[in-house]
């Protein structure tokens, strides 16, 4: 099955159930963290604790071994999956029945298969995992492994498998049946196998975060408790658990706290039902983690608490789930890091493209992992391993600095600034060629550009050329001085929004300059072409330095370019503070001008229909820029409704790619469903294109409304 076919199938079969569940979790997270006053401080603390723990990991492992052994348990440090499985099977060698509570680490080592080969009956007691065990399927989500299945689906599955006297129908029926069936298995079990959300080195305490109660029973009913946990789960002290306890349920499913958070210091005193002593084994798994610790890209993955917030907040994940957006074991945005670290690049490569870098997971992550960066940096590694047989098509045309074997589609989109420059120079012929039937066939064949997408129309006169041909307002009558950054899209394609920006800024008293400038590196970065992106970043920083030295502000139209300065340059140009501190998104800047007493009267107009729906670009949301646009428009008398969709699904080049066109459209349709009357505005060029292509609405940049009001 091709990738496009696989995605089409999942959209049809699992999409609906995944969408309703992940969105419920995601909305719950927003509500729950809104009530948590210290949310940001708790995330900072959680992050610090994880950084420190991973830094001191060897020392903590030694300390944990001492504490667990002093308590009367054993610790086994397993090098890899095989080693862990061998040890667990050894502990369970006399067992007939082993019950399990949910453990993703157990999934990673495929412990069920190994135990079954050793003649042990294994039963999953988490209801989601139980469903998957019956269905013989892999989890589609880190926290809720069976979210891709609806109630009807589960009822059909269990009725067919167990053939109960009365067919099961409601969620209550299904739950009661499963809990009785599994209750009997737990009673018979000789060994209980759990995971652990956290392990405290100082005291030898495990923290288990659950809601059903199955982990409590799995750990307490059988005499022997085996816990399997990745070495990254170690936390130095008991007190360090507090931020995690406050954050994990909220981040995962939008619950302030789950029904049960067990802090077990085994062997636990609870008497056994056999009268024998309790036995406890902790299996700590390396399986690539120690090497991840030494890897500058993958180290951050070890801070992950596996809450699934990155999956729930991801527009792509919301539509296809973890069976597309996941590797051998792990799912969602952070899965690229886990898969690359524990299973290898090949597994990460199967789904890594589904991260568009929209960055909506960044603020959702309770340990502040830069998940888009991990995806980008791993994409760069995958690119370097790739191969391509059609280099002649673009050799010399696409002047990037990345290795020559990189996938040609990525190279086309990564060099968008060059493509746009050439497209503009040869417009309108270039537009006719690209839109012609042979042109589309060529783009589809050579670069995988989906022929169903409208291609951008390049303008013959660029914004820079237009600006050079007019008289700007003199600097001595202006109050402020700014460079309007002509990103390739504003410069070559949507020149009108650039012109509108110039007019509005000048009327508010800004001496504007629009010099020709290098690209920010956004386009190559989104393709994982980190070397090219870094070179663009350096060139741009050099070109902007004299302006910054002269005290000019840098105003950016396209939010994804501002996100480069504010977020991605942390990785590409860590020394570049001046640019980060003196650059602004266009409406953010206008908000600032108005706050500094720029004359708002030039923007007023007296028309009645002032209702607008505003879709803020994903990266603008992450940078918390949405409120500026809303505030400016509201001051001008607009009635603004904002959208909830995390991303439009276009995400720069993503929606153009034939493999992902249908997913992109599905994500866009969810956004368009939210639009309800009034005019539509969006501050990202991708969002404008996507909404226009799906809804036939005409979508403008907010600054175009302001410019219109001045006329």
């Amino acid at each position, binding site marked *: 099955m091709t990738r496009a076919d696989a995605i089409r199938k999942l959209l049809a079969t699992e999409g609906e159930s995944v969408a309703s*569940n992940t969105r419920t979790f995601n909305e719950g997270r927003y509500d729950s963290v809104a009530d948590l006053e210290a949310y940001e401080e708790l995330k900072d603390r959680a992050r610090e604790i994880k950084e420190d723990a991973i830094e001191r990991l060897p020392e903590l492992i030694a300390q944990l071994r001492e504490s667990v052994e002093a*308590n009367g348990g054993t610790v086994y440090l397993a090098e890899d999956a095989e080693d862990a499985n061998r040890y667990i099977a050894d502990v369970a060698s006399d067992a007939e029945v082993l019950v399990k509570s949910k453990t993703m680490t157990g999934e990673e080592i495929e412990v069920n298969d190994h135990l079954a080969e050793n003649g042990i009956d294994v039963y999953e*007691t*988490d*209801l*989601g995992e139980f*469903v998957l065990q019956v269905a013989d399927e892999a989890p589609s989500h880190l926290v*809720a492994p*069976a979210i891709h*299945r*609806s*109630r*009807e*689906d*589960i009822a059909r599955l269990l009725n067919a498998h167990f053939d109960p006297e009365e067919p099961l129908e*409601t*969620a*209550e029926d*299904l*739950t009661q049946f*499963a*809990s009785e069936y*599994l*209750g009997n298995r*737990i*009673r018979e079990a000789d060994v209980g196998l759990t995971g652990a959300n956290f392990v*405290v080195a*100082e*005291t030898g*305490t495990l923290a288990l975060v659950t*809601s*059903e*109660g*199955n982990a*409590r*029973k799995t750990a*307490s*009913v059988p005499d022997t408790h085996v816990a399997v946990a990745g070495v990254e789960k170690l936390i130095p*002290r*008991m*007190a360090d*658990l*507090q931020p995690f*306890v*406050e954050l994990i349920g909220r981040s995962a*499913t939008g619950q*302030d*706290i789950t*029904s*049960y*958070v*067990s*802090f*077990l*210091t085994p062997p*636990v*005193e*609870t*008497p056994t*039902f056999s009268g024998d002593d309790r036995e406890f084994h902790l299996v700590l798994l390396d399986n690539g983690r120690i090497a991840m610790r030494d890897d500058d890209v993958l180290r951050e993955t070890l801070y992950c608490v596996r809450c699934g917030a990155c999956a729930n907040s991801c527009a792509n994940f919301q539509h296809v789930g973890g069976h597309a957006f996941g590797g051998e074991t792990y799912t969602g945005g952070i899965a690229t890091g886990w898969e690359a670290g524990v299973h290898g690049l090949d597994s990460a490569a199967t789904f890594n493209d589904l991260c568009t870098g929209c960055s909506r997971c960044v603020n959702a992550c309770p340990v502040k992992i830069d998940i888009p960066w991990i995806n980008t940096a791993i994409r760069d590694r995958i690119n370097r391993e790739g191969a391509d047989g059609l280099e002649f098509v673009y050799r010399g045309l696409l002047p990037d600095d990345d290795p020559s074997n990189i996938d040609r589609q990525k190279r086309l989109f990564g060099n968008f600034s060059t493509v746009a420059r050439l497209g503009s120079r040869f417009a309108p012929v270039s537009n006719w060629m690209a839109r012609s039937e042979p042109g589309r066939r060529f783009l589809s064949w050579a670069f995988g550009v989906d022929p169903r997408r409208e291609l951008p129309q390049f303008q013959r006169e660029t914004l820079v050329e237009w600006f050079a041909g007019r008289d700007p307002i003199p600097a001595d009558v202006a109050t402020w001085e700014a460079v309007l950054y002509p990103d390739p899209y504003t410069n070559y394609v949507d020149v009108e929004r650039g012109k509108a920006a110039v007019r509005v800024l000048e009327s508010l008293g800004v001496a504007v300059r629009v010099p020709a400038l290098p690209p920010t590196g956004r386009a190559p970065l989104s393709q994982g072409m980190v070397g090219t992106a870094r070179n663009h970043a350096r060139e741009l920083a050099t070109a902007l330095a004299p302006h910054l030295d002269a005290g000019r502000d840098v105003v950016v139209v396209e939010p994804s370019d501002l996100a480069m300065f504010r977020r991605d340059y942390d990785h590409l140009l860590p020394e570049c503070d001046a640019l980060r501190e003196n650059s602004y998104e266009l409406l953010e800047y206008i908000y600032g001008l108005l706050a500094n007493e720029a004359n708002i009267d030039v923007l007023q107009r007296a028309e009645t229909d002032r209702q607008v729906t505003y879709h803020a670009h994903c990266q603008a949301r992450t940078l918390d820029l949405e409120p500026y646009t809303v505030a400016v428009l509201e001051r001008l008398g607009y009635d603004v409704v904002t959208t909830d969709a995390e991303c439009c699904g276009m995400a720069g080049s993503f929606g153009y790619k034939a493999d992902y066109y249908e997913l992109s459209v599905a994500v866009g349709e969810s956004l368009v469903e939210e639009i309800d009357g009034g005019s539509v505005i969006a501050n990202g060029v991708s969002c404008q294109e996507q909404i226009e292509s799906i809804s036939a609405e005409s979508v403008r940049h907010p600054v175009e409304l302001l410019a219109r009001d001045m006329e």
Partner: protein
Amino acid sequence: MATDTVTAFRESLRELGVEFTRTTPTGAEDALAECVVEPAVGTPLPFDGVSLPESVTLDPTLAELERAETGITPATFAIADYGTVVVQPTDAGEDSVSLHPDRHVAVVAESDVVPGMTAAFDRLVTIAEAGGSAIFATGPSATADMGALVQGVHGPKEVHVLLVSDR
């Protein structure tokens, strides 16, 4: 314990759908009898002047646990902001008694209700450093894995908090 802490605790419990009774040491036995659906199992209550109803089975077998409708345990402390009762597993079997029956009655002294997670962790750290364990139990057992939210899976369907005032 400050009145607003008890108010906050009560409000959190209400949101979780947990029943709540406030009583005094002398009224505790009657209040407990009202909470109990027979057959009941329990663990000793460490509050002066408060004892379990006579019908309650102590040190239950697994079969008695599974047959029981109600399990009564003390809560070592409770967290007002979250509506959490903290069950400390000891050799009296608090973990099992609070988990297996459909109904858990948690008895907590008013002076043991702490306002939030920071104060809760002060107490938790002391327990763990002494080699002990603790369960933060918040509301009933629940799952959404079967296509809708259902309460009572592998743990109690109902929780009742009995708050014993110090006067």
